[in-house]
Each structure stands twice: as C-alpha cells, then as structure tokens.
C-alpha cells in the first residue's frame, strides 16, 4: 500500500509561542497528526522531528523549546489527544521559565495545515524475504512511510516487522527492524536500514556452519 497526502489549510496561524500553544489546544486532530506524524514524509529531515520544533527553532530561535519538542516521540502515545497534552505541557513548562513572547517576522508565522490522505495499493506483493528485499529497494518513499510510520498509528508497530515475525517467523530480523529509530532518519535512511537488516540476516543464515 501507499498513501499520498494533499495539504489543506485550516486557516489558523501563530506568531509566537503563546499563540502556538493556544492553537495546539483546540486545533483538530488531523492538523496535529500532520505536523507530527507526517513530518517524516518530508524528503529532507534536518535536525527536528516535527513541524513545531522546526518552527520554534528556525523562526523564533527558541532552541531549548525546540529540543524539548523534538524529543517527543509521537508514536509513544495511544492517540493524538495524549500527544496534544504532551505538547502543551512542554510549551507550558517553557513559558513558565521564559515568559517573554517573541514574534516571528511577518511571513514566517506557523501555518496550521491538515491533509486529505489517499490510500491505494501499489500492486506489489512479497511472498518471501528475497521478494521483500527487492520490493523495499524498489517502492516509493511514500510506501515506506505508510508501512513504517503510519502503521504505528494503526496497530502500534511497523508493518514490516509484524509481517516478518508473523508470516516468515523470523523474530531476530523483526526485532532488528523494530529497533530502527523512527525519529532519527528520513525515509531514505529508513529504507537503507531495513535493507541492511535484511542483508545482515541473510548473510548470517548463509554463514552459519551447521553441524
């Protein structure tokens, strides 16, 4: 499967941290989802893990808050409302220490968006590890995103390790893929790590000297 997202404006903006906090408190789940979970759809992830952290650092130059926000793992929460509480708590803690607001320059405000997501099959199947490896190398980044990131919202873990464990029965490989840090790579980085894990697993099997 693969998903594409079409951006949709909510019409809400924030010029400073207090306004950001105020909008995060009431904006719909779809918008929070977009600015956090879907951050990894970007091709060039630099040093942040969500749009809020990115904006706070780049447009407000509030590095400390940016670090705190970047450390929030959206996949650690049961649902978006719990993530929302964590974001608000981080901002509140920061405002308690640094209450002076500072506005972004005009044009660099935070624009709250949401997305319409279209999910569709890409017509590719893997029946064994060799086919899986080929497919992972071949599919679009959006497909990797769908199965590695978005799957975590659907059932708590990525689709790849679930399939490898449940269908192929390879617990070690599933564990290796599960252990890839989702917040530290862009999608091409995730693809490279999965390929590496599968190749290591195959190499290990080939090199075992059986009695």
């Amino acid at each position: 499967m693969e998903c594409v997202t079409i951006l949709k404006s909510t019409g809400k903006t924030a010029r400073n941290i207090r306004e950001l906090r105020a909008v995060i408190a009431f904006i719909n789940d779809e918008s929070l989802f977009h600015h956090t979970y879907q951050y990894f759809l970007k091709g060039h992830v630099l040093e942040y893990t969500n749009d809020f952290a990115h904006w706070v650092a780049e447009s407000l130059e509030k590095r400390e808050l940016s670090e705190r926000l970047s450390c929030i793992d959206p996949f650690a929460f049961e649902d978006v409302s719990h993530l929302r509480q964590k974001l608000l708590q981080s901002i509140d803690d920061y405002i308690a220490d640094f209450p002076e607001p500072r506005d972004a320059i005009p044009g660099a405000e935070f624009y709250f968006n949401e997305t319409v997501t279209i999910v569709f099959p890409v017509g590719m199947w893997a029946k064994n590890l060799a086919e899986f490896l080929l497919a992972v190398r071949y599919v679009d980044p959006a497909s990797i995103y769908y199965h590695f990131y978005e799957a975590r919202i659907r059932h708590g873990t990525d689709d790849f390790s679930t399939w490898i464990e449940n269908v192929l029965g390879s617990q070690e490989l599933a564990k290796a893929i599960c252990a890839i840090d989702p917040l530290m790579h862009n999608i091409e980085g995730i693809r490279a790590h999965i390929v590496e894990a599968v190749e290591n697993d195959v190499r290990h099997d080939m090199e075992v000297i059986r009695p």
Partner: protein
Amino acid sequence: MISQYSGISPKGDLILLKRLGDKMRGKSFLHVNSTKAGGGVAEILHRMMPILDELGIQARWEVIEGDEQFFDITKKIHNALQGNHETITKKMWQHHFEVNKRNMETIQLDDVDAALIHDPQPAPLVEFKKSGRWIWRCHIDVSNPMKEVCDHLFRYCGKYDAAIFSVARFAKAMGIDEFIIPPSIDPIGEKNIELSGNEIHETLATFGIPIDRPIILQVSRFDRFKDPTGVIKAFRIARKYNDCILILAGSPATDDPEGELVLNEVKDYASGDPDIHILLLPPFSDRQINALQRIATVVLQKSLKEGFGLTVAEAMWKSKPVIGGAVGGIPLQIVHGVTGFLVYSVEGAAFRIRQFLNNPEMARRMGERGKEHVRQNFLITRQIRDYLSIWYALENCGKGTLGCNV
C-alpha cells in the same frame, strides 16, 4: 503518453493517476484561464490536457476573451493581490464582471463535472455555474494583498466549492475548503527534455552568446516583481572577481500589458554592456529556454514576489545550482543549503553566485539533490494526481476525513 513518464516520475504517482482516471473516466473537467501563451499557467495546461485525455477524462481548456481595458484592470488586480497599491473603481469591477458575463456566450458550462478556474481574471464565472464541483485555483502570491481588492475578489471565490493555493501562506479564510498544491514542470516537455550538445551550442550561437565563460541566467517574464535590475546589480558585484556573462531571457504574455515597459527599463539599466544579454523570446520558445538552462553555470530567480517560480524547478531538473529570492513558492523548491540558496538581497544573490562559481563540487552536489527533490515533488504527474485526488475527495471523502481509499 503516460507510459513516457515511467522511469521518470515516482511509480506511486503513476499508479494512483491510473486508479483515479478509472474512477473519473468519462467525466468532464473544465479549465478556464486568461491566456493561451506565456506564463506558467498556460504552460502547465498545454501539457496537462493530453494527459487528462489519455486517462479517459473529458478535459477542456477555455480562455476568456477580454479587451485591453479588461487586461489593464486584471493586471491591477493581480498587482494589488501581490501587495502593490492600486485603485480599482466600482466601474472597473463592473467591467471585470461584464467581460466574464460576455464570455458565457462562448464558454459552454452545461454538463461540467468539475471546473478549475485559474486566477482572478475568470473568477466571476462561478456566478454562472450550472453543475459540478467548482474550484478556484490561485497561482498568485496573495500573502500580503491590498485588503479591499482581496475582499472584493473573494466575494466570488467564496462561492466555489474549494480553492487551491500554491503555498500554505497564501491561503485565506474564505469559508470553503482550501487545498495547497504546488505547480509543476513536465519532464518530457520541450522545455525539459534532454538536448544534444550540438543543439545547445547552436542555440547559443543563434543568440550570439559566447560560451567561453560561466553563464549566469535568469528566465522570467519582464516584470518588476522578478527584479531583473536587481539581477544585473548582483551580476555586476559578482563579476568583479569572476569573469562571467549574464543572460536575462523571457517571453511576453498576452495578459501582461506592462511587459514591454519593464523590458525597456531593463535594457536601459544594462546600458549596452556586452556581457549582459537580454533576450525577448517569442512564445513557445521552450527548446531555446531549455538550451539556455542546460548551458547555464548558475540559475537565478531573484523574485521579490512570486506565485511559485517554476523556473527554479526547471533549472533544478537540469541539475543546476539555483539561487532564489525567499518569496512565494521558491522556499518550497530551494531547501536552503541543500538544493540551492535562498537570498534576501542583491548582495546575497551576488555572494551566492560567487560561492557557486568558486565551488563547482558544491554546485554539482546541490544540483543533484535538487533534481531528486523535483522528481519527488514538482513533476506534472504529481500535480494532476493532486487535482484528481481533490476532485475525488470532494465527491467521496467528506469534510474532515483523514483518509479515503482508491
């Protein structure tokens, strides 16, 4: 035709296009704008129509006809939406509406399943809507418009089912669904296909441009918002230590009455400098522009206001290092320091030109990243995919739905 994009466009885009085409087969999709030639909108529509057709969608492109007064008024509206102070009287707005009304005699609106109305010129057509989903497509930077002009125009726009802007910052609260879709380039169109070295050199010879030195290029309409004189200033600063030549190339657009005036200003400003080549190309000079972009060492789009600035994506597709004004859609294309450089001043542009000319390896690396960025985000297949996805979503997903399956 779609098969020609195989191996160029992302695979998922092509698969989804086919699926959406199957869903929309036989339905009619009307596009209306105000010019057949010149500017990015006409260019995209020229390329988009045959693809929609091949998907089985009955695509139709109409151009509204207007008199000189109409285009003077719509140019003022355009400038006001981009932040210039303009006076648009009640009488002018009335003429704007009347010309649209007159166009109803020739534009067939019966049995329209979806209509995409491009920019302010034909926006009043929504008053004559008969059927289907109507979407207003705004290609202009409306981030800081003149309020009265914006309010007046948005009285029409609020009557559409949805609006599309190129950049999130441009979206306005109009009480309708507002989507963000960047425009695109066609990798197999005349402007972007591979050219032979011979053809490139012949083109340069035709224009009498030497190729013995690095070439700095800006391709754009002769419009003050594109800051052609700023480009000349930046070139003159960079040239102090770096022997190079500058090409400013652009085509006229029938809906831009100011073009000739600005061209003359730019010629005056260049004051016969033999290293500055100002080229007024006829419409549809796509291969010549392609050749200029392919031979260029550094490509600029130093706009002060910009709808999107597709010439940036065109240059990036040719793996060129790019420098762009940080306005409109340019920051979406240029990830600063990754796929090119964003600049805020003449001096900034001059500095980045010098940096590229003195670091060819960095220029090459950024050019390569830029091409991949364009492949994933700014090809025509992605744009058509997005238009059809919105149409499909408006009909099937409902408001606020997170996802829908195709």
